[in-house]
């Protein structure tokens, strides 16, 4: 009897234990709040009478937040609650945000606003009637958004001229390069600062530097160039082709037809160019193995004389690291940005500016008060709204337990604002602490623009203003002039399943085969690898992608009356 009792109790306990956690559902706040009060705060926000609760799913796909980031998010939420009577409830995704949103969609567990999603995911919400149409608000509570979108507004509309989303981040700083070739400045000066106008000049300058300094102070071998191959970070042949006059990896003829770089002479020239470094032994042999962090370590250890990539990587991995380790690092010990082009190329097209953005925000059918949410999104399109979103909390925020306070800007009770003079000075002299910034930033991005504001000076990035007062930035802007172009019309947003699959297959094909061409040991090997690359791309369906890109480009040009 005792045995029976014990086994019976065991069973019940185990059944109950196995059921714990079942049936838990995420509750979404759907209360309709009174958003009108007639009371405006210094940011120009009409503070609602009832607390406005906004549930947001942020598909940005973040790394685990640091303590500073956690604190910053906490500070921002509190600030919005106190000053705006808005309670932000944000779910952050880690890893691949798209996966997380797809799962949320599949399980019907998504909140009022989903931000940071791709065009495809946005389309899924729209096609299932799970997104709220924004068009009716665009001339009223969403008019700042429409104004900000400007001439590209029609490109956001669907075939029935309806707007379903806002770009999470749109616009561009037209004078700021995205990609550039970079070279060690002090070493370039030491070899007599030879002119760099062509790819050959860059090659010769890097080799000259290597001849002079073949090893690091620690005795490690140095290389002219090195690549990295993380997803999200890629030494991308399509971008490299810009030096040979292609745009975003395509040759576009006058009729608007696209040819992929691997089927052009320019693409082949570009590949041969890097093969030359490989054959000389001046291309890091681990170029196709390095993850970004491994590459960064090599770069910070002064093992790489040049780099072709985002303008900031030589800052992030170069002098900013050196200056942090040794404040007496000479000013010239840094990289500068250089522009060059093949002699036959019309221009060097290195930075295609897509002002449409690549991530989007929607209001979902879960929202019971979409007008209130729209109002909040529109707030981010106003100057003070964007400043709060991007520059963070004004007037000072404690930096952890350091006893210090930090801020980028100040605002008074009347809404008069200015960039904090000390912050401005620190940014110009490049002594700004990016680590401190985390404590006063962290607002969700629902609609932001990178473009300069009406005053032509300010923009959302604290470090992208007052170029003329920063010697190095001025030099970069001057050197990179003419390498930036508008690629908005090239952006292919509507894709059929066939094109989407072809796009991935094309990426797989060049990823698998381009490295073999760069690392070919003989001319025959190179030709064989090049043919293999072209065959792989053909099998992958490059023709489908080229056709879709061409058609899309022509339609967009027509929409923009260009």
């Amino acid at each position, binding site marked *: 009897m005792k045995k029976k009792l014990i086994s019976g109790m*065991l*069973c019940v306990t185990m059944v109950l234990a196995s059921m714990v956690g079942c049936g838990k559902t995420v509750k979404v706040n759907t209360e309709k709040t009174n958003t009108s009060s007639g009371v405006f705060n210094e940011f120009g926000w009409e503070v609602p009478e009832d607390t406005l609760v906004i549930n947001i799913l942020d598909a940005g796909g973040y790394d685990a937040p640091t303590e500073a980031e956690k604190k910053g998010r906490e500070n921002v939420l509190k600030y919005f609650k106190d000053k705006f009577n808005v309670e932000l409830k944000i779910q952050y995704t880690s890893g691949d945000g798209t996966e997380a949103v797809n799962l949320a969609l599949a399980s019907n567990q998504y909140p009022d606003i989903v931000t940071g999603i791709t065009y495809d995911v946005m389309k899924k919400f729209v096609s299932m009637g799970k997104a709220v149409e924004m068009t009716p608000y665009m001339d009223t509570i969403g008019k700042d958004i429409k104004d900000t979108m400007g001439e590209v507004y029609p490109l956001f509309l669907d075939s029935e001229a309806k707007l379903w989303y806002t770009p999470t981040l749109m616009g561009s700083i037209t004078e700021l390069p995205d990609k550039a070739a970079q070279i060690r400045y002090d070493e370039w000066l030491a070899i007599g600062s030879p002119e760099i106008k062509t790819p050959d000049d860059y090659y010769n300058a890097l080799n000259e530097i290597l001849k002079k300094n073949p090893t690091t102070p620690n005795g490690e071998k140095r290389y002219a160039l090195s690549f990295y191959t993380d997803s999200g970070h890629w030494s991308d042949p399509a971008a490299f082709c810009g030096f040979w006059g292609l745009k975003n990896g395509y040759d576009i003829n006058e009729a608007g037809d696209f040819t992929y770089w691997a089927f052009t002479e320019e693409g082949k020239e570009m590949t041969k160019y890097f093969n030359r470094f490989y054959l000389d032994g001046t291309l890091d*042999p*681990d170029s*196709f193995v390095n993850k970004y962090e491994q590459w960064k370590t090599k770069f910070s250890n002064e093992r790489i004389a040049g780099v072709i990539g985002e303008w900031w990587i030589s800052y992030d991995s170069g002098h900013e690291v050196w200056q942090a380790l040794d404040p007496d690092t000479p000013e010239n010990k840094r990289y500068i940005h250089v522009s060059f082009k093949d002699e036959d190329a019309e221009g060097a097209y290195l930075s295609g500016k897509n002002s449409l953005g690549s991530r989007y925000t929607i209001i979902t059918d879960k929202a019971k008060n979409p007008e209130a949410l729209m109002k909040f999104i529109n707030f981010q399109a106003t100057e003070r709204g964007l400043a709060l979103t991007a520059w963070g909390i004004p007037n000072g925020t404690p930096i952890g337990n350091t006893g210090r306070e930090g801020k980028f800007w100040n605002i008074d009770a009347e809404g008069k604002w200015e960039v904090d003079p000390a912050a401005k000075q620190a940014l110009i002299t490049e002594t700004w602490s990016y680590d401190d910034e985390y404590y006063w930033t962290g607002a969700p991005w629902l609609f932001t623009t990178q473009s300069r504001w009406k005053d032509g000076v300010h923009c959302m990035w604290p470090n992208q203003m007052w170029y003329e007062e920063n010697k190095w930035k001025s030099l970069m802007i001057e050197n990179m002039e003419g390498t930036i172009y508008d690629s908005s019309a090239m952006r292919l947003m509507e894709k059929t399943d066939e094109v989407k699959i072809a796009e991935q297959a094309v990426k797989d094909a060049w*990823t698998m085969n381009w*490295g073999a061409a760069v690392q070919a040991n003989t001319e025959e090997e190179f030709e064989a690898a090049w043919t293999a690359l072209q065959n792989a791309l053909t099998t992958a369906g490059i023709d489908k992608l080229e056709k879709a890109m061409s058609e899309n480009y022509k339609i967009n040009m027509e929409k923009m009356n260009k």
Partner: protein
Amino acid sequence: MVLEIKKKIKYTVRRFNKQRQLWLLCIPIIIWVVIFAYVPMYGLLIAFVDYIPGMSIFDCKFVGLKHFKDFVFNPSFLLLLRNTLAMSLLSLTVGFVAPIIFALSINELPHKRYKKVIQTTSYLPHFISWVVAGSMIYMMLSNEGIVNDILMRLNLIVKPVPFLTNGKYYWVIYTLANIWKGIGWSAIIYLSAISGVDMELCEAGAMDGMGRWGMVRHVIIPTILPTIVILWILGIGGILNAGFEQHLILGNASTQNYWDVIDTYSYRYGIQLGYYSIGTAVGLMKSLIGFTLVFITNRFCRKHLGTSAF
């Protein structure tokens, strides 16, 4: 006939009654299996429709075997199959035998303490994540890694061997890395089987003049053979599972032609691109093939080795 069925039912009921307390204990497990292993199987229907997340499977367009056909006739299919089978077969041969040999070797060690130290040390790599293991392998095998450095210093090579960038080394590196990580852990089950060896048989063998090798061959291996067979049968079921995270970590652009396997393809197209139907179709196909292979292998082992998993 009816009588026979009645007899069988009666026997089953009697047996159930006799074991009712054990069955009662099993209820939570059965419920768990039903809820978490069987109920979700309805999701397999995704493989037969053009699934859109958020929409009910039954509202999605039925496409029959389209996704299976698309996968099999995909230009990458043969490459994926070659890589998957090559690495699986290496694991099922070299990778499978390694822990057996390791367990037999440990069993032969004379000092108990020494034996324990070796055994415990061999478990450690199992607990290292592939991310850390990947960094260690990079440090060892990259062009500027320790192995190349040693080979260069010994003047055995003139320039570094591109272990990590030349695809022809990939399968070997993958197999060795798997063995290094799993040998100690996998050997546990064999060591436990070896501990069940009848000591009288060993003593009798020794009396008959059997050496250590003879003892291993004629006493230990036959004793642990059922364990080996069962694990092998189960291993065959996973023949189309040729690793996943290992490839994303150890692999790179230059070696993708050698590491791209069915699972990594299914991840890129099924999960990353959001084509869950493709991912499900590939997964279902893998499971069916694995399931069939387990049955065939089980039958083969029963017939030829006199032992089987079921």
